[in-house]
């Protein structure tokens, strides 16, 4: 914005002057480190934050956070703090520490330190104002950094858990040479159906499967898009040279499929998993015989 030039320069100048106050501020916070840290710890305790951690743990974390906090005020760089906050989050997230607690403790520290500044500069109101001008932006940046790192870390953990859940939820198992079973348990949404097909097709290739039994006993409901996807899975498996047998269609699901008019003529279905495996064995040329029958 042209025209604002002079005031910009003025502001810039004032900012520089305020920044000069930071070293003084840091020295003050270092000097009263023990008192302020204890004050902060007791405020955390009063507010019932970090209740999942023991007092010793809280004390040691509080010490590091305090030193990091003052360090940021001194250097103006939040990089180190960000690393520390990530590391801290990694440790405390599994303990069940919540986002509001983390933001709460950082804001408490901000307030504890601000109060000590009030105390120190209360006789010189103008100076206090300038000290706060220097302190507040830095303090806000610290709060944002810590909260941001915590949330990022939490999201990372959630993503990781989702990934492993997704993999766990659709095991592709080999029961005999060339025979895979794919028991599906739980709600099949489009995403999962897609991922399942992908996993199955790769498993067909790696296990050199010729027959696949997909058991959907554990699927509570099948809608049109999922049924459609099942048909596609069957087709795609066939293109790779593997026949698919679907087992465990409940009467409700079977009725739904017929009602919504999914073309099941190409699907090979057998009542239950046992029947499906027997049929698959027959297709593959296996014959399962009881040991005592075979001896005779």
């Amino acid at each position, binding site marked *: 914005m042209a025209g604002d030039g002079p005031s910009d320069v003025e502001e810039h100048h004032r900012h520089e002057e305020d920044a000069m106050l930071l070293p003084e501020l840091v020295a003050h916070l270092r000097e009263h480190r023990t008192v302020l840290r204890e004050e902060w710890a007791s405020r955390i305790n009063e507010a019932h934050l970090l209740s999942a951690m023991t007092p010793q743990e809280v004390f040691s974390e509080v010490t590091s956070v305090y030193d990091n906090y003052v360090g940021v005020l001194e250097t103006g760089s939040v990089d180190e703090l960000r690393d520390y906050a990530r590391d801290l989050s990694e440790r405390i997230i599994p303990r069940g520490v919540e986002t509001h607690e983390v933001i709460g403790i950082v804001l408490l520290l901000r307030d504890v330190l601000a109060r000590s500044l009030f105390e120190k500069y209360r006789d010189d109101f103008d100076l206090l104002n300038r000290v706060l001008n220097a302190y507040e932006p830095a303090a806000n940046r610290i709060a944002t950094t810590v909260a941001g790192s915590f949330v990022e870390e939490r999201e990372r953990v959630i993503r990781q858990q989702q990934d492993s859940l997704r993999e766990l939820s659709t095991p592709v198992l080999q029961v005999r040479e060339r025979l895979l079973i794919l028991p599906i348990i739980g709600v099949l949404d489009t995403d999962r159906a897609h991922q399942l097909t992908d996993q199955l097709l790769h498993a*067909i290739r790696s296990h*050199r499967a*010729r027959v696949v039994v997909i058991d959907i006993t554990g699927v509570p409901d099948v809608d049109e898009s999922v049924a459609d996807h099942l048909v*596609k899975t069957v087709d*795609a*498996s066939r*293109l*790779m*040279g*593997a026949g698919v047998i679907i087992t465990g269609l409940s009467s409700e699901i079977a009725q739904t499929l017929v009602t919504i008019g999914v073309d099941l003529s190409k699907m090979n279905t057998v009542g239950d998993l046992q029947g499906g495996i027997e049929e698959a064995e027959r297709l593959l040329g296996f014959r399962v015989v009881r040991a005592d029958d075979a001896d005779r």
Partner: protein
Amino acid sequence: MPTADLEPSGPLRVSILTQGGYLVASVHTALDDGQLLRFRRDLLDQIGSRRSRGVVIDVGALDVIDSFACHTLRTIAEVARLRGAETVVVGIRPDVALAMVELGASLGPVTTALDLEEAFEVLADRAAVPPAGPLR
């Protein structure tokens, strides 16, 4: 093993080899519609001249199998059957298979198998008598 180059002057796009009484056609690169038609003609000619009992078409090198390619493969299988040879398409990759069903490109009744080895097994299962190969 004899090979037949479809385009003597250009790069080799499909090689047709014999194995026992079977023909094995390997598609090396994507084929355009004209090349597909030429491939079809050459393959069907060779089924006659070599008296093949079975044909294996390996499409493992293809990233895309579109509806025209499917149509060509279906036609080959049908014509080959009329001339006394079973056709097995092998090597369709997982992502290609998925793309084909998503696009509705279907191979219809054409037999498929995972790879050459499987295809020979399938063909051996189908043949009541062992394939009549050249004297060895």
